[in-house]
């Protein structure tokens, strides 16, 4: 009897598996044949039926999920306002196709391949430089243009012909923060703490060290292992070595832990953070404490009142969206950047007059667009955005909001 049940179970499971495989090949088949069949008929007028897919390469799970979801919100909001695009005299409906890179570099390549398999015209993302670097070669091989939204590490676009980005770079950001530390706090000793093996963290710390030591300061560096949760030792070390500022360019999950542990340890040195720390979960973690936190970022609430009002209404329109934004309607800079990225992608399609990846890539170099986060244009070598300003915000721990500290340009290196 038991054997029969076991056999039946095995049969059921294998059928389910087969059904799953069958389903995906069936659904993939019309997609792959769609461009072929529609190409010869493109002269025939069938407006409204045409679909162009934009791939969203973002973390929906893992350490950076919180940031990834906020960046996606900006794209979804832009898509809800402008669901169609006019390319070469035809109206295409824009469809967002999602692939979750899980915040880890080992899942990123398969998520990237998934988007390539879906025949998207262009990819947006990802939040987090490490996963973008890991996914980059897949897009490069497939000839699919990718538009980085907030991945700030120089290696994302360097040597990758198909990766563009609309944000500033880490060497610029680190320069801004190091100068800010010198100007504002007369800092002589900086303690830098990052995750071991994370390109984003380590890259920023290396650039920060360059600028800070060149200006006569001393840098103490530490790396914590992945999944570490006890930061009190590092923070006590920073305190005992007399750090004037503590620089923690880490992902949100670690930032909330570091800052809340620092609050209970009574660390008095101000914290400097990179663009990742501009997140309302970080604000939530230090609300009501005495922590001083300054972050450099892409956008400050109030920069474009129309956008602010619209996105707040969108965030409050459903409980799911509100939860994705961390439970309140504070606007993250990454949301504004996601919004701009969507329009830059549409702009590239219009300029190319085509929805073929190769044409979009060729047109991308000449795209200029004025978004809510400022003017966007791409430089000639790597396809990085030409940006010369960063906003430095400080956390108001009494009521859990951001206050604009200063708008800083780099030292012009």
């Amino acid at each position, binding site marked *: 009897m038991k054997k029969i049940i076991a056999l039946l179970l095995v049969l059921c499971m294998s059928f389910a598996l087969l059904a799953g495989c069958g389903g995906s090949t069936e659904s993939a088949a019309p997609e792959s044949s769609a461009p072929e069949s529609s190409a010869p008929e493109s002269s025939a007028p069938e407006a409204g039926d045409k679909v162009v897919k934009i791939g969203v390469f973002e973390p*929906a*799970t*893992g*350490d950076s*999920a*919180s940031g990834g*979801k906020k960046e996606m919100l900006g794209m979804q909001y832009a898509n809800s306002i402008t669901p169609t695009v006019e390319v070469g005299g035809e109206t295409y409906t824009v469809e967002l196709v999602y692939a979750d890179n*899980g915040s880890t570099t080992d899942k990123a390549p398969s998520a990237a391949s998934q988007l390539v398999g879906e025949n998207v015209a262009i990819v947006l993302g990802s939040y987090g430089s490490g996963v973008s670097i890991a996914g980059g070669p897949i897009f490069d091989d497939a000839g699919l243009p990718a538009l980085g939204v907030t991945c700030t590490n120089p290696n994302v676009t360097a040597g990758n012909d198909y990766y563009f980005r609309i944000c500033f770079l880490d060497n610029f950001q680190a320069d801004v923060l190091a100068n800010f530390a010198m100007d504002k706090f007369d800092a002589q000793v900086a303690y830098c703490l990052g995750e*071991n093996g994370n390109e984003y963290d380590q890259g920023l710390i290396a650039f920060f060290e360059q600028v800070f030591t060149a200006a006569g300061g001393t840098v*103490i*560096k*530490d*790396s*914590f*292992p992945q*999944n*570490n*949760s*006890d930061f*009190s*030792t*590092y923070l*006590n*070390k920073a*305190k*005992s*070595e007399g750090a004037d500022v503590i620089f923690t360019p880490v992902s*949100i*999950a670690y930032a*909330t*832990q570091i800052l*809340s*542990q620092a609050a*209970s*340890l*009574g660390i008095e040195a101000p914290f400097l953070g990179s663009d990742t720390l501009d997140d309302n*979960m970080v604000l*939530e*973690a230090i609300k009501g404490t005495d922590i001083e936190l300054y972050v450099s970022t892409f956008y400050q609430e109030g920069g474009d009142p129309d956008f602010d009002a619209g996105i707040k209404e969108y965030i409050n329109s459903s409980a799911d969206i509100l*939860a*994705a934004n*961390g439970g309140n309607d504070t606007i993250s800079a990454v949301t504004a950047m996601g919004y701009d990225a969507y329009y830059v992608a549409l702009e590239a399609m219009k300029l190319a007059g085509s929805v073929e990846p190769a044409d979009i890539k060729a047109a991308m170099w000449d795209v200029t667009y004025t978004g809510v986060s400022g003017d966007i244009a791409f430089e000639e070598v790597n396809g990085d955005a030409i940006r010369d300003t960063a906003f430095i915000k400080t956390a108001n721990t009494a009521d859990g909001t951001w206050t604009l500290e200063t708008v800083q340009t780099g030292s012009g290196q």
Partner: protein
Amino acid sequence: MEYAISILLSGISVGGQYALIAIGYTMVYGILRLINFAHGDVFMVAGLMGIYFTSWLTSVMSPGAAVLCSLLLVIVMTVLLGFIIERVAYKPLRSAPRMSVMISAIGVSYLLQNTATYITGGQPMTYPSIPFLFDTVTVAGNNIKWAVLLTPVLVIILVLALTQLINRTKVGMAMRAVAKDFETSRLMGIKINSVISVTFVIGSALAAVGSILYFTNYQSIVPTAGAMPGLKAFVAAVFGGIGSVPGAVIGAFIIGICETIIKGLPSAWDVSVFSDAFTFALLIVILVFKPTGLFGEKATDKV
């Protein structure tokens, strides 16, 4: 000096939290010869339950009472979870080869992690601030949470109580008998299923207490939050001699303190990165030179 004390304090607290998880590993191994890989995830689920119960109860009663009730509820529900896992995933495999049970344990571990990812959406969740445990106190110039101070004390009390239970009571005697010989104790009329259930209940309750102390200190919970502490507690259990409760506790404290000392060494030496590597290097060394651990029985069973 102030700095040295701060390192020692956080080492003791980290060790204490590992100890509470390690006891669950070592007891289950002692009786079933099973490494319960799902134990670290039970610990994580207990943490998540703390978050959800507190936010749910706060809407019904005053915040203080809500936290207390939710802590009790967390312990009860974690015990129930441990009990159900044993009944559903391990009991039907009682006569199966040991390897099958271990694979089942790995399956349960992934099931719990993925369910947690589904429910939380993969976002890090923030553990509620528990009154008193979360408050800070100044010891030799260091601000530390009461939870940190309380952990080692609580661990010692619990271990003493547990050894009394194992050595002095009828259930304890049954446990020791089952650990010695499964079949014979069954012949002697011991209800081995209830003895095993009691073991899982105790292990899960300790994991729940551990999760309260751990997440009060490190407030962010992701679905993989149980994996690292679970692995380290497992190393601690092996280090102390798997199957021995005092051994697991001593192993956990040694690992916790060594780990924090390595993290706290001067940055110029650039060794703080190796704090995790140290733990697992220790595991290899122990397995090579003293496979039975510090206080292990002389068993030649292979896992």
